[in-house]
């Protein structure tokens, strides 16, 4: 091994890397929130919608889960403009991420909703709660609590797979790394540092999710 490591290129473009990492964080959080909304609506439609709605949602889930994320990005970024919808790379990346995570999260949340016993809902209605209140307090909150670990690990996978959107040059962390690499040719040094940043982001997100769990879901369910 006659290679001398040289991290000057990485240190010199540290600000640029941090900007990329910040966009990765923004894209990920944006896609998590929007994807969660999509998933709750789809899970509702799948568990209690009319047959055609259920069929469409099923098709959406199966198509997304059985095709690569990269191909989904290409379809959105290159395909939509031919229909007259022009998207910036960042927006196309966000849409692709929402579409992708929405499908996976729908299945997770559906499992959570199905774990709620009928008697709970009936009890809620009998106590005089309105259907929307029953949905909010009796169905969705306990459902999210049950599937919380699965849901948050899906979100972390989403953050990691966001590196793939560099293929359409959205300015996130991997794209920034590609740019620095093509100017300095210090490929290995840059990618090893960027891999470390992703690892740190993954750990930060799982700490954040643990904190959210404590705030929102750490209530005692055994109280009688």
């Amino acid at each position: 091994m006659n290679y001398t490591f040289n991290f000057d290129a990485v240190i010199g473009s540290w600000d640029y890397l941090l900007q990329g990492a910040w966009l990765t964080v923004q894209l990920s959080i944006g896609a998590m929130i929007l994807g969660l909304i999509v998933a709750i609506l789809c899970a509702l439609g799948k568990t209690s919608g009319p047959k055609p709605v259920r069929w469409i949602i099923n098709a959406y889930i199966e198509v997304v889960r059985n095709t690569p994320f990269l191909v989904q990005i290409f379809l959105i970024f290159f395909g939509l403009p031919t229909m007259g919808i022009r998207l910036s790379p960042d927006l196309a990346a966000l849409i692709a991420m929402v579409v992708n995570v929405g499908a996976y999260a729908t299945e997770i949340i559906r499992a959570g909703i199905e774990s709620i016993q009928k008697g709970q809902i009936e009890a809620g209605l009998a106590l005089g709660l309105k259907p929307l209140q029953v949905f909010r307090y009796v169905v969705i909150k306990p459902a999210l609590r049950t599937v919380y670990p699965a849901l948050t690990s899906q979100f972390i996978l989403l953050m990691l797979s966001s590196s793939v959107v560099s293929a359409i040059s959205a300015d996130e962390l991997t794209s920034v790394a590609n740019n620095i690499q093509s100017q300095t040719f210090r490929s290995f040094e840059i990618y090893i540092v960027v891999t470390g940043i992703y690892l740190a982001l993954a750990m930060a997100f799982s700490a954040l999710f643990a904190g959210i769990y404590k705030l929102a879901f750490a209530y005692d369910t055994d109280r009688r």
Partner: protein
Amino acid sequence: MIRAFSYNEFLFLLSAVQWTLALSAIAFVGGATVGLFIALARTSDVKAVRLAATGYIQLFQGTPLLMQLFLVFFGATVMGFDLNPWAAAALGLTLNASAFLGEIWRGCIQSVPRGQWEAASALGLRYPGLMRYVILPQAVKVAVPPTVGFLVQLIKSTSLAAIIGFTELTRAGQIVNNATFQPFLVFGIVAALYFAMCWPLSLLSARLERRYAVATR
């Protein structure tokens, strides 16, 4: 010059499917071989071995697959030899698959009731025999549905090899799209081909899982 999308272009995409399948097969065989050792290490009685395996799994599950491919691809140059994109993709995907399979199979090994381990060692079986004749045959049954499910993930992951320049299905799609400029049609067909590979496996995995759930009820 822009070419029309003809039967020839379709055949080109179709023939690229074999590279996607070949890459998936290599990564699966390699990943399964290494993954078995990872799973054994992860369930080992020796703390240091267990920690090393846990670290390995967390490293691969906590970083993007694309970065892993880049590091293998450029790392080989650093070590002083040249890997072509094909070998880099195969090696990168193998390492990645081994971490995921190792973690899936760890769960399967641990799902074998403790009494089975105790009974086997009471009968005088040492670790190799205990694993080979008692634990693994029972763990395999549990392992089949999630392993088939993982195959779907693996086939989809091979699309990232396109980014480091290996011509499998997705890269073939990019090449055809650059020549014909019909992104919807081209990537629609590419997506359909992936779907045709993955969907049957997804259905199979779900069916096996249901059958297993009935068997253990």
